């Protein structure tokens, strides 16, 4: 492949944001070179490609960088027409998918991170919020799927599937570390069966770190956040991936 057509992904092994892009590239069958970034010691390339946020993932295509996982997914969908679409064709369905993707990102993910990085009363409050948001998502799924069962396989994963997977693919590890069961089939039957189906997709399975490693990741993250240190208990993507980059990928 000519240098200009090459696809590179700058990432970090434990980052769910990077995982989203990897899943999309694999679903579309796009060959790429993966570059592991040390986020404690960021490369010149990363700082050049993402000067605004200095974060991963960054996709490089034709020598040009694209940043922000959702932006990357839309770029992939528009650029590689072969393989399954990541967004529906119908504008109204696209809007619904974008709406729920934004919900998962802004309202669920942020609050789950809060549960991971807090304790005591603050954690109890955050847990309550997550359950409220999950209930809203469960309700929303009824409208989104409109009574049809949402069949997942490697052929029809879209951006919402990918985003949900990047958050709750590790739900068993989250359960083990937090002692809270978010993906509860009794409380959230539609959501639970959807998450279970997602974790069974071959591409997702291949990209998921083993359970034990994920447990370590969440424990590490929690420990780091609860330590009274210079980082403080800031629930930001930066803290999350900064903490994790100190654990080895192998």
């Amino acid at each position: 492949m000519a240098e200009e057509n090459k696809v590179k992904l700058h990432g970090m092994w434990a980052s769910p944001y990077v995982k989203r892009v990897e899943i999309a590239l694999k679903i579309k069958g796009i060959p790429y070179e993966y570059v592991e970034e040390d986020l404690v010691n960021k490369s010149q390339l990363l700082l050049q490609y993402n000067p605004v946020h200095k974060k991963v993932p960054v996709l490089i295509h034709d020598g040009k960088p694209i940043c922000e996982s959702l932006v990357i997914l839309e770029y992939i969908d528009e650029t590689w027409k072969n393989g399954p679409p990541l967004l529906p064709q119908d504008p109204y369905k696209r809007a619904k998918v974008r709406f729920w993707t934004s919900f998962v990102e802004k309202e669920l993910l942020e609050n789950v991170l809060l549960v991971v990085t807090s304790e005591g009363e603050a954690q109890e409050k955050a847990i309550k919020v997550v359950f409220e948001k999950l209930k809203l998502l469960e309700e929303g799924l009824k409208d989104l799927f409109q009574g049809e069962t949402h069949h997942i396989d490697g052929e029809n994963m879209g951006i919402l599937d990918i985003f949900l997977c990047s958050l709750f693919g590790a739900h068993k590890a989250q359960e083990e570390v937090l002692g809270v069961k978010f993906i509860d089939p009794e409380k959230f039957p539609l959501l639970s069966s959807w998450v279970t189906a997602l974790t069974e997709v071959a591409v997702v399975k291949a990209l998921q770190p083993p359970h034990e490693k994920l447990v370590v990741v969440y424990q590490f993250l929690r420990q780091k956040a609860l330590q009274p240190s210079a980082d403080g208990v800031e629930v930001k993507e930066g803290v999350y991936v900064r903490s994790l980059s100190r654990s080895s990928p192998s």
Partner: protein
Amino acid sequence: MEVVKLIGTWPSPFSYRVIWALKLKGIPYEYIEEDLSNKSPMLLQYNPLHKKIPVLVHGGKPICESAVILQYIEDVWPQNPLLPNDPHERAVARFWVHFAENKVRCIWRLFRTTGGEEQEKAKKESMEMLRALEEHGLRDKKFFGGDKIGIADIAFGQVAHWLEMIEDLVGVKLIEAHTFPHLHAWTKNFKQVPIIKENLPDFGEMLMYFKKARDNFLASRGPGM
């Protein structure tokens, strides 16, 4: 063409994002002013999750969240595109819309401060955000969209008009010609674009409205904060 309705409120920058997009594309629509202190059954029906504006209703089907609405409008009505043709440039525009969604809210945190450490922190975050726009977003372009306004300019509209109101009320000046030359020029150029100029809330009325809202918020917070 199916009927298009927009439920919004006159002081909201998010409402205006949708108005600007509809007007730029020449899409006729019915505007419905919502009273957020007494939410209508229509709003609760169309946006049961957040109960917020703006909501676009197209052929009876609701679309919520202004950033989602902008993309929807672009998908349905391709004339006068808000996004560039080139895939990489589209990604850059979307990156800045994403930035607007996540980073510009610091100006509203500043809006809620009266002084001290809280205000210093909010001011610092706001300045960093504006620095990113100046150095990486706008650089030496006239608009984020290049020679014409695009989706990113629309997303940053609150920086052009509402930020000045926040600056006045809080008593801090963030955008000055010598500190942010390109951004400063952009705020003027953006508001000179005819569709934008004709569709902005009156500055004086807006100032009064937000002053009252701020006073109410500060009073409810209580002293010593």
